[in-house]
């Protein structure tokens, strides 16, 4: 239900918008994604993420050694010849395992982010567009799902479907959806309340056309930002789940699994496997979250 806005209030807001200085600032950020200023750190982050993405695809083909070939006589041996980082506790080539491990970490997180954002934005736009009862039902449903933290849902999923990347990924996607949906719902509600949407409704435009061609594109900056932020969260949570033994299963090479497997060595004074895997995760996650923050603040400003 919409309440008529007193015209006097609108005059005040409009007069403020008309302020030329405010206008200059507003035009500098309107348009969202195209005008995000990255800066040195931003570009660095972009390079890191791009590198990780390339590795996720070609990692298994460029690795110097077989990541699964174990020779116990090399267990915990440090950098040696062309084995740049040496060997893990089972005598497997560490560098090769890191290269191959990028795949599950990166693609798994991408899967979670894409599914969560797709589901979340569909729910958000639906709730915002129809409002009223639809909005209340969607919001109540989201509240229930919200009661399940991602990790808990993943543990339950592992118990039900068995441990594995797919069940962990699905569990996280479900657990993240309410977060995306909440953020995007309020953005979509603001957009829904814009006069241009009402004007196009009066033109006789249908809901599909309005949502897909006008409303959604105008919140796309935030959608991408949310996707990026969730991608970072998903990398962390998936690695954590694998670390717990409920995600990717040993002996498959995966950064989370490697942190966990390397712990025995770490406590005995051979930290190479755990720490290199931790370093990979931390670097890529920082890069992703840095980009996400930049996109989000640009998107939010564009949305004032």
């Amino acid at each position, binding site marked *: 239900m919409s309440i008529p806005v*007193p015209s*006097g*209030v609108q*005059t*005040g807001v409009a*007069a*403020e918008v*008309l*302020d*030329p*200085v405010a206008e*200059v*600032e507003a035009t*500098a950020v309107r348009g969202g994604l195209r005008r995000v200023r990255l800066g040195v750190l931003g570009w660095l982050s972009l390079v890191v993420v791009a590198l990780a993405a390339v590795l996720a695809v070609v990692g298994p083909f460029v690795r110097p050694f077989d990541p699964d070939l174990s020779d116990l006589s090399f267990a915990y041996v440090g950098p040696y010849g062309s084995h740049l980082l040496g060997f893990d506790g089972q005598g497997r080539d560490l560098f090769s395992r890191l290269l191959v491990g990028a795949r599950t970490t990166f693609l798994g997180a991408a899967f979670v982010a894409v599914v969560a954002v797709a589901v979340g934005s569909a729910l958000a736009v639906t709730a915002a567009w129809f409002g009223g009862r639809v909005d209340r039902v969607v919001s109540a449903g989201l509240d229930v799902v919200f009661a399940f933290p991602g990790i808990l849902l993943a543990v339950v999923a592992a118990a039900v479907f068995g441990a594995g990347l797919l069940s962990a990924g699905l569990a996280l996607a479900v657990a993240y959806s309410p977060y995306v949906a909440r953020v995007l719902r309020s953005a979509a509600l603001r957009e829904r309340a814009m006069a241009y949407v009402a004007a196009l409704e009066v033109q006789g435009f249908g809901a599909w056309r309005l949502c897909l061609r006008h409303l959604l594109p105008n919140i796309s900056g935030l959608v991408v930002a949310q996707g990026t932020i969730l991608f970072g969260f998903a990398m962390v949570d998936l690695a954590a789940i694998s670390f717990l033994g409920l995600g990717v299963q040993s002996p498959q090479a995966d950064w989370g699994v490697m942190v966990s497997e390397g712990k025995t060595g770490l406590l005995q004074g051979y930290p190479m496997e755990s720490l290199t895997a931790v370093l990979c995760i931390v670097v890529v996650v920082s890069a992703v979250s840095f980009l996400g923050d930049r996109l989000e603040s640009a998107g939010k400003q564009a949305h004032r």
Partner: protein
Amino acid sequence: MSALLEVRDLTVRLRVGGTDREVITGTTLEIGEGEAMGLVGESGSGKSMTAKAIARLLPAGARVEGSVRFAGTDVLGLSGADLRRHRAKVAVVFQDPRAHINPVRRIEDFMTESLRTLEDVPRAQARTRAADALEEVGIDDPARRLRQFPHELSGGMLQRVMIATALLSQPLLLLADECTTALDVTTQAEVMAILDDLRRDRGLSMLFITHDLELAGAVCDRTSVMYAGQVVETSAAHRLHADPLHPYSAALVQARPDVTSTAERLVAIPGRPVSAFEAPAGCRFAPRCPHVLDGCRGHEQTLVDLDAGRVRCERAAALRGRLLDPTESPTESEETADA
């Protein structure tokens, strides 16, 4: 009348996205004790920034040149406790009271805060004074209002709270920045009347900022008109409407429809109002001026005395008395493309 406030050649630049944007250029005005001065202009004219500069409320990174003297002290040089004392003597009533009053504190807290903090007035006494002040601005049941939160009051009511609060600290100058723009017309008339009465009772000076020439004319002694960061005219308020000195003032008068008659066609000013940093060289109004000559564009115009007023137009003397003459008004020229 000795001048309480003197603003000389005030220039303000703000940093926006890494570049300096000039928003006020060489503004000059003075307000005598007990005098009400109107400051009229369209958006971007720099009228609000002038008020902010006087109260020293400019955003961080603003660069200010020129001088502002208030009651004999140089305002731009103040800092620390002296600056706070200056601010306490200059009360500001802002346009949007809802944004300008802390939403999570009660009306009483808002009203008595400066009394209790700056003057150590005991709580009970401060409350009584606040209640009296509310009654003066025509608010019924002040005791209940004092216990309420801002969101429980209407916009007109909040603006009256704002005015009552401004007067509580016994300032010497009132800066009213579009303080009735967001209100309904009947509420505006009432709030204006309250402001006008109380100001006269106390012999308070006022700088009244508005886009409404007629409203300024009704409550002010003199009015200054700003365009693109400059004062282009200062005249007696009642005269500005009937006998403007500057072509821009005249254009403002004519562009506004009249409630008592229907014009065949409004005399629109082509183009749009610009800010100081977008303004052309030479006379800033030249691109929109119906009386422009080639000479106007050549050099900056200066503010000169003319017929008991002041005007920034070298043709003002030549155009005396003809600006509002319908036979003199040039036909509406094609709107020039905006920059």
